[in-house]
């Protein structure tokens, strides 16, 4: 059918994706803090963290199974899955969240009016609402640390993992100015960069030679809540001897 009624989003030059190798993840949480540092995530403080108002664009979810001494646990790093059929996008009345041609589920803070519908329709709970003025909790001189490439959000807007879009843009611009193609591994997201065990791999899924494309083909791969048909671009690789 003509593209004006087709539900395929336009395809850009790249399609960014991530692979999370659960067999490599040690649960060390470096990615969580790296994300805070890179993306100017606010500190909520003890009470508000307990009340579920903290910000973790990426978090290590731990799931118990079994009783002592047959205890088992799983670590699952969960961040925005940047679903190709993101359920959070169409419900926003003001297009504050939409899909970029490069496959990012992008959040436009200035458009957001805070209906919080997107988080309700988000099966992974990876969207975060600014319940309070986040900048206030950066006690002086902590604001000196803030990354100038990333907006400090204001009260009343949603925020979420952007796949470090500021890094993507910078790398793309640098490559364009230098007149070359963007190479695989030239840059990565803050979480993937901090991961000592290399459990997180970020890259271009359109490039069949990229590490992320190769890993995403792995027989161990699965995607979170795949049955919902959200079609995430974050591929998980099972742990264990699969």
């Amino acid at each position: 059918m003509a593209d004006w009624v087709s539900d395929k989003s336009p395809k850009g030059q790249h399609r960014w994706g991530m692979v999370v190798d659960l067999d490599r993840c040690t649960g060390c949480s470096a990615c969580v803090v790296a994300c805070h540092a890179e993306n100017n995530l606010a500190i909520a403080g003890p009470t508000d963290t307990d009340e579920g108002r903290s910000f973790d664009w990426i978090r290590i979810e731990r799931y118990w199974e079994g009783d002592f001494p047959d205890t088992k646990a799983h670590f699952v790093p969960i961040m925005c899955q940047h679903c190709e059929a993101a359920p959070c996008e169409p419900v926003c009345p003001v297009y504050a969240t939409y899909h970029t041609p490069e496959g990012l589920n992008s959040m436009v803070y200035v458009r957001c009016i805070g209906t919080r519908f997107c988080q309700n329709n988000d099966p992974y709970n990876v969207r975060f609402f600014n319940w309070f003025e986040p900048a206030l909790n950066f006690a002086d001189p902590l604001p000196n640390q803030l990354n100038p490439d990333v907006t400090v959000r204001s009260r009343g807007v949603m925020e979420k993992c952007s796949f470090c879009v500021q890094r993507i843009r910078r790398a793309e611009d640098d490559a364009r100015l230098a007149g070359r193609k963007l190479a695989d591994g030239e840059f990565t997201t803050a979480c993937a960069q901090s991961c000592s065990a290399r459990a997180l791999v970020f890259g271009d899924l359109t490039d069949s030679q990229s590490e992320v494309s190769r890993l995403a083909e792995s027989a161990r791969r699965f995607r979170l809540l795949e049955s919902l048909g959200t079609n995430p671009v974050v591929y998980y690789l099972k742990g264990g001897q699969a």
Partner: protein
Amino acid sequence: MTSNVVLGVFPDVAGAAQGVQSLLAASFPAHSIDVLSGVPYPDEAFGLPPQQSNLTKIAPVAWIIGAICGFTLVAGSAWLSRLPLAAKPIVALPAAGVITYELAMLFGVVVTAFFTLREMRLPDWRKSPYHYRVAEGWLAVTVQCRDAMAATGAIAALKSAGAEEVTRHG
């Protein structure tokens, strides 16, 4: 329109019908005769030809115009500022249908109300012939007369039909 209007007040519908009949008998044309009442009576109760209303034709037209406007607003604006949303086409017909439907209904309601007021010739801020007892359930028969002569005839006709009070306006 308000000059040479004669108004006769009747306490009940039978009297008013009588008044209308005697005016008709005095060869006042039916279209110049009107009845003011506190409740709607069928035109047949006074022996007058039925009133016409175009609302049943206007409403569907308004509805269709509303639907077209709604769809244009939705599809057109989406087409002009194309923002891809995951798994939703630029013009998503089911979603567009909802807005189209609501706007069609809104147009239908607003246009119908507007034309109702037009048909009722409201709002009317002139001092048109009226009698306060109409509010108490009485009826008033009005007749538009060509001239003072005719008006005198109308007064006589209404009085003979048993009007409690007959006044002349303008």
